[in-house]
């Protein structure tokens, strides 16, 4: 025992030899504590702790591992079988956003307001919100020449997108325009686009505003 009360801290004396440490502890490992009149509480307490840890651990694992699904990252996800979970589809408008962001945003801008004097706005535009036939034709074959949008004159070229985009993409992007920035017009289906594409199959030139006004 370090009975030296001088707190000199020069040398630490040992109070037990290595051999005896090993011998004594090997003995202690084999013998359980003596039951001194009654049941020893500690081993019971330890047992209780172990069982508690395993129990609560298992419950937590069952609740929060979501069937060990490799594609689930949220512990609040549904614990049903993957097959039983319906794919939640995005609306056409939501899907169309991606097309808009890659194709239309350069001219018509992210706000849909266009550039004054250059590119017409889509917000509140009678061309976008009006007849399906007109807007689909514009997207398919492009637009050229003077056009009046919301009382203002524009004279520019819109490139045709019928070759670059599929029917579904065109339907999506038009639906997006019709549902964004306060616009509220019914969505357009791919079938409608396909029908217009078939109707105008031979067309190779841009539309003009005058021609489109003939279309209902």
């Amino acid at each position, binding site marked *: 025992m370090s009975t030296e009360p001088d707190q000199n801290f020069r*040398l630490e004396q040992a109070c037990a030899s290595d051999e005896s440490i090993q011998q004594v502890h090997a003995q202690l490992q084999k013998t359980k504590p003596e039951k001194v009149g009654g049941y020893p509480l500690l081993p019971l307490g330890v047992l209780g702790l172990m069982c508690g840890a395993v129990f609560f651990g298992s419950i937590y694992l069952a609740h929060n591992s979501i069937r060990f699904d490799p594609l689930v990252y949220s512990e609040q996800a549904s614990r049903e079988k993957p097959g039983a979970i319906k794919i939640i589809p995005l609306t056409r408008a939501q899907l169309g956003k991606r097309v808009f962001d890659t194709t239309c945003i350069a001219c018509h801008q992210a706000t849909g307001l266009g550039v004054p004097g250059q590119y017409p706005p889509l917000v509140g535009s009678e061309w976008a919100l009006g007849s399906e036939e007109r807007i689909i034709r514009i997207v398919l074959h492009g637009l050229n020449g003077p056009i009046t949008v919301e009382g203002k004159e524009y004279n520019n070229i819109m490139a045709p997108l019928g070759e670059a985009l599929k029917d579904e993409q065109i339907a999506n992007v038009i639906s997006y325009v019709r549902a964004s920035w306060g616009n509220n017009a019914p969505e357009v289906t791919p079938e409608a686009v396909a029908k217009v594409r078939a109707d105008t199959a031979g067309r190779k030139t841009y539309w003009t505003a005058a021609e489109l006004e003939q279309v209902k």
Partner: protein
Amino acid sequence: MNFTDTNGRTEQMEIDASAKWPVLFIFTHALAWLIVGGALELAAAIQLHTPDFLADCAWFTHGRLAPAAQNALVYGWGFNAAFAFGLWLMARLSATTLRHGGWLFVAAKFWNIGVFLGVAGILAGYSTSFELLEMPRFVTFLLLAAYAIVGVWSVTTFSIRNTENVFASQWYLFGAAFWFPWLYAVAQVMLFRAPVRGVLQPVVHAWYVNGLYGLWFVPVALAAAYYLLPKILGKPIAHYYLAPLAFWWLAIATAFAGGSRLIGAPVPVWIPTLGTVANFMLVVPVVLIGLNLFGTLAGRYASLSGSMTLRFVFVSMLAFVLASVCNFAFALRGVAETVQFTLLYGLRDWLLFYACFSTAMFGAAYFILPRLTGHEWRSPALVRIHLGATVLGVGLLTGGLAWAGWQQGRLLHDPAVAFTDIARAMTPWLAFRTGGLALLLLGHAAFLINFVLIACPVFSPGTAPAQINPPPALEVLKA
């Protein structure tokens, strides 16, 4: 040398003699890294509240300096200290000398060259960006080769042991000796040699970091505590029959606990859940180890005042409990939501590495070095400075980081708070951290001076040799 003593005593001096030069050699490197790493860490800490500090030089930009400091401390100080202590203790408890110690010099040199190249590589821009694995790839083989020598020496010493009985410290050292090379090699292969795809990389990384702290540093610290307590108090470990259970439970639970570092991450949710469950399970071994260690100290707290080693070991034990509480708390999803990515995670890791492991190594060093060198510590004042600086520094750092981390977490959680406001809230507490690190560096310097005085033969003429009394046999007290 008194050969008429019992066999045991002669062997002990022989063992110490055989271990002397390898252990001193390794420990010198350890201390050198402690100072260098500590200085780098201090510089990195200053950068946190004074971003302009050293920002002009690409070598010392914070993104390179902080990892370099951490790697220098962990692989430089941490591993060297663990090697030195582990080799000596394994030899002592196996009651056999450390054979062919010359190879250990080679191993130490390789290891330290590797760490030096690694740290320099990080500063030069070859970092891999995975925390604690930032050292560039060319260093891996050097480190593994050096470790192989040390590991094989440790395990072989164990296998040729002259004792029938295997003590708890030996289990922990044996375990640590096996676990580290596996962890390191698997991590290197799965992250850099044949990299896994996508988010699996952070999964492997979390497994490695958790294993490094929980299956290498903590076992070595526990080996020190389990040995030094009965050795100095002369009282056997309390409730020792629980120790094997604690060892196995700790091993298995810690191996899975890495997932809790990935709560909320884009990895399959069962991984962090498993990590949290493993952390729940870790309560059991922590309680058992606490019973073992604190039970042994129970009623003997007065002896702390007379023993420098025990004081350090006591700090280590307290830090172990605190770190385990942090581990448990941070594994709970609700707490992790606020606490993740803040300084609190760093605090938990630092508590494990410095406050638990490093203080245990300091305590062990104060016990071992007089026996190896045959001299007493020259300056008790420096020992006191080291002790006081450590306690104060640990307190400052823990308090500062805890408060700063909590503020950071709270403010991060509120989306309305801008980042500049968060920075402003943290800055005063980060200054606490810098102050704590400076204090710790001061303590380390005191230790270094004492070490040089005791180990360097230049300073020994004129000092009395250490009078190491033969220790009595341990008594088994009737509980």
